[in-house]
């Protein structure tokens, strides 16, 4: 059966993750739409939007985990792909404003009228149509990642050097998007959105739908990544991560695998960014800042690198902590906590939450097996701890 074959690709953790995610989404939607606002279990719409934002981060984290956790590409510039997807969506949303902007120009977004531009720059053409914008959400991050990867991986830039130039990449984009002349709204970015596909961005219904879509995207991203890493292709990725030269000597075109994974990961990040923008209502150049990308890396590290579910979990946990910390009197201490988290995770929890749990689980099952085989007077199968 195809279903069983498919399900067999998911470990216990993955199954729990998918079930939890589906259940959680259904619960939030049901509570928001069916319960009375006075009910203590009612989830207000702004919380739904907040949860949607977390889920977008989770998608970014899963995408990053695919590249870092399974192929050893530590990108400190994944925020750039996320932001580029976001800008593509933002441009579509800007074009939807039409005459409802402050200057009521049917073609030009407000900031262009403000800057005295006479016509739409060439790269803004086509963004009034959603299919085109959707294509660009995947295409722009994908092409950037492909070109970047083509140069970087073919000339065998690896490890820290790769991390540093990905950071330089996002930094360069940050500087570029800050310029008014770029035609992306400069410092202020794109905001003041009205409609998405004819529905008001502000409406409760739209927000719920966006939340569900993000949840589905996370599910889809997870499934795609999981299927990929459990396939033969995934085995090669892991071997590249653990012994790149050896894999190359075995006859595999290492750079092609890397380019593919990096590009796929960038496209996923782009989609996450695209769904992020209508839910937070703004996209500006600060999304490109290197700090954001490094924060995404820490989500993956906290949850557990190379586990996929861990990456998603890490994104949710860290961002939940961030919201709780930064809204109260504890606000000045959030960065202390985040910094301490970075140090604690790398020193004490190198496998992250999920990775540590998996280890613990594996050790227990192998112990049980050993006991059972001891009972049956059989030699226990040697189990090696994963490196």
């Amino acid at each position: 059966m195809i279903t069983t074959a498919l399900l067999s690709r998911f470990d216990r953790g993955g199954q729990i993750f998918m079930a939890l995610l589906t259940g959680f989404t259904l619960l939030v939607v049901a509570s928001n739409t069916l319960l009375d606002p006075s009910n203590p279990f009612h989830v207000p719409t702004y919380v739904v939007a907040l949860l949607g934002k977390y889920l977008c981060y989770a998608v970014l984290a899963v995408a990053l985990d695919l590249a870092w956790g399974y192929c050893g590409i530590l990108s400190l510039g994944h925020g750039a792909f996320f932001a580029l997807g976001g800008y593509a969506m933002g441009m579509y949303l800007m074009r939807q404003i039409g005459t409802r902007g402050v200057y009521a120009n049917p073609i030009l977004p407000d900031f262009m009228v403000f800057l005295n531009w006479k016509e739409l720059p060439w790269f803004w053409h086509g963004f009034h149509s959603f299919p085109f914008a959707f294509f660009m959400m995947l295409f722009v991050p994908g092409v950037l990642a492909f070109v970047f990867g083509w140069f970087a991986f073919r000339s065998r830039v690896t490890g820290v050097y790769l991390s540093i130039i990905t950071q330089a990449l996002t930094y360069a984009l940050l500087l570029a998007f800050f310029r008014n002349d770029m035609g992306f709204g400069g410092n202020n970015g794109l905001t003041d959105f009205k409609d998405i596909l004819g529905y008001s961005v502000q409406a409760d219904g739209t927000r719920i739908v966006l939340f569900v879509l993000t949840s589905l995207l996370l599910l889809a991203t997870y499934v795609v990544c999981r299927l990929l890493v459990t396939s033969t292709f995934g085995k090669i990725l892991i071997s590249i991560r653990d012994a790149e030269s050896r894999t190359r000597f075995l006859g595999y075109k290492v750079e092609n695998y890397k380019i593919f994974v990096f590009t796929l990961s960038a496209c996923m990040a782009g989609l996450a960014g695209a769904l992020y923008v209508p839910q937070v209502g703004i996209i500006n150049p600060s999304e490109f800042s290197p700090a954001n990308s490094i924060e995404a890396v820490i989500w993956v590290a906290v949850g557990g690198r190379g586990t996929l579910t861990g990456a998603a979990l890490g994104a949710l946990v860290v961002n939940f902590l961030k919201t709780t910390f930064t809204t109260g009197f504890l606000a000045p201490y959030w960065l202390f906590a985040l910094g301490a988290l970075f140090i604690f995770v790398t020193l004490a929890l190198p496998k992250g939450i999920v990775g540590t749990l998996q280890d613990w689980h594996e050790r227990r099952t192998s112990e049980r097996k050993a006991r059972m085989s001891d009972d049956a007077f059989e030699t226990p199968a040697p189990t090696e701890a994963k490196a």
Partner: protein
Amino acid sequence: MKHDVAAPDSTDRRGASSERPSMTTRFLSLHVVHPALRATMAFVLGLLMSTLAAVTTARSATLDDVVKLLAADSFSDTDAAISALTTSGHPAAVPILEAMSDRRLLVDRKANKLVISTGAARTDAATGAPVTGAADDATVVRLNNRLRGRIEAALASLSFANPDPAKRLAAVEQIAKARNIAALPRIEEALKSEKNTDVREALTIARATLVLSDDKATSTDKISAIADLVGRYDPDTMTTLRTASQSAAPDVKQAAMTAIASAERRQQFANVVQNFWYGLSLGSLLLLASAGLAITFGVMGVINMAHGEMVMIGAYTTYVVQETLRSVAPGAVDSALLISIPLAFLVAGAIGVAIERGIIRFLYGRPLETLLATWGVSLILQQAIRVWFGASNVQVQTPSYMSGSFDLFGLSITYGRLWILVFTLLAFLALLAVMKLTPLGLQMRAVTQNRRMAAAMGIRTSTVDALTFGLGCGVAGVAGVALSQIDNVAPNLGQSYIVDCFMVVVFGGVGNLWGTFVSAFSLGIANKFLEPVAGAVLGKIAILVLLIIFIQKRPRGLFALKGRAVEA
């Protein structure tokens, strides 16, 4: 021209005080050294006196007219009076006009004379003799804004005779700006007697400018005026020359075109020199900021994302030293910078050793984890500074020996940037000396080359690790002292340098201090040469993109280490 006015402000005032006595001495010596000429002189003097007397009568007559005009007490008559005063050449014209603009000039209608009041004392404007008795019916000359402007201009034209060269210079500038052709004879006159070279130059330019804007001037005059302007490329001169190049006379046009071409060539050259200097200055900052990273990342291979924060801590150390001195010994605030240099090294170095012992030593061989952990450290340090000192900038003073600038071939060089360049070179040489000449440097190199062999030779590798990391961080702290003079001292000071620093080190080649040296200066100069072409931000982006491409081509940098150490 603007530049000429601003720069000699301080230097010329000094020049003026030294020049005044010298002129007097020269004049006296004329009398003393040539006694034989006295007879002739007496004759000449007598002749002069008689002429002078004649002139004086003529002048007093004009002054009477001025009094009459002022007594009418109408703005238009006052205006006429100012013009009359300006053209009269009366020796008291300047004090009268000054008094008028200060509202200290009174008209005594009864005695038909002008009185200047200075506090309680009153003097006759024409003779300077004190005035006593009833002057109650004397009234102050009333002014409006237009008249004030006229007085300003009149004073400017009259102050060619001012003994202070700076004042004379300002007067010439003003005349040249006004493009008043009527001033031409006065300028010619002034040129004959002017000794100060700066003022002479300004006068020559003013004359040339006026001649060129005079329609009645002959072509020969104009061409010689253009010749006076050759070699200058300030915007005002360029405008004058451009206007002249529209001239109908073909020879004038030709001369103007040649002058413009030469000016443009000179300007281009000056721009190149200026860009080069700015590039050197930026390069010295980059080198200073990344020299520490060249040790921690380059030599030890530790990705220290908190490197920028070490720079920031150095800058804040300077601030703390300055504030402490201000409350303890206010007179010594100027030396805060000097005290801060060793102190910043110790503070940042101590923090570095603590980071190495507490975190990094557990992460050797895991560069990506080191990167994340040190990023965490950087967040904590930044936030700690923000909590203690506030999120806004703190003021670090520039000591007197660092402020100001001097001119070098038309290039304005600020002392601050020059000192930082010198300081950077000294710091770099010191670092190089530590690495090459001291036992510690020897041990550092031994440990990084072959840890186990070094340990077997009795080197305490863990101590050496801590000290090396501390050295790198300490140098970063010293960089912070210098940066506090140029950049805003704020908690995120280091953040803006971290990407640049890594770029410098990677470009130069990891593990090679000279590589870092070359790369910092070439990046700095390249950046400044790209800036005018592409704009500041695009220039920086271009550099980043070029670097990204460069790393693809030579992943190990300009000066790559060769041999087995590479793979370690």
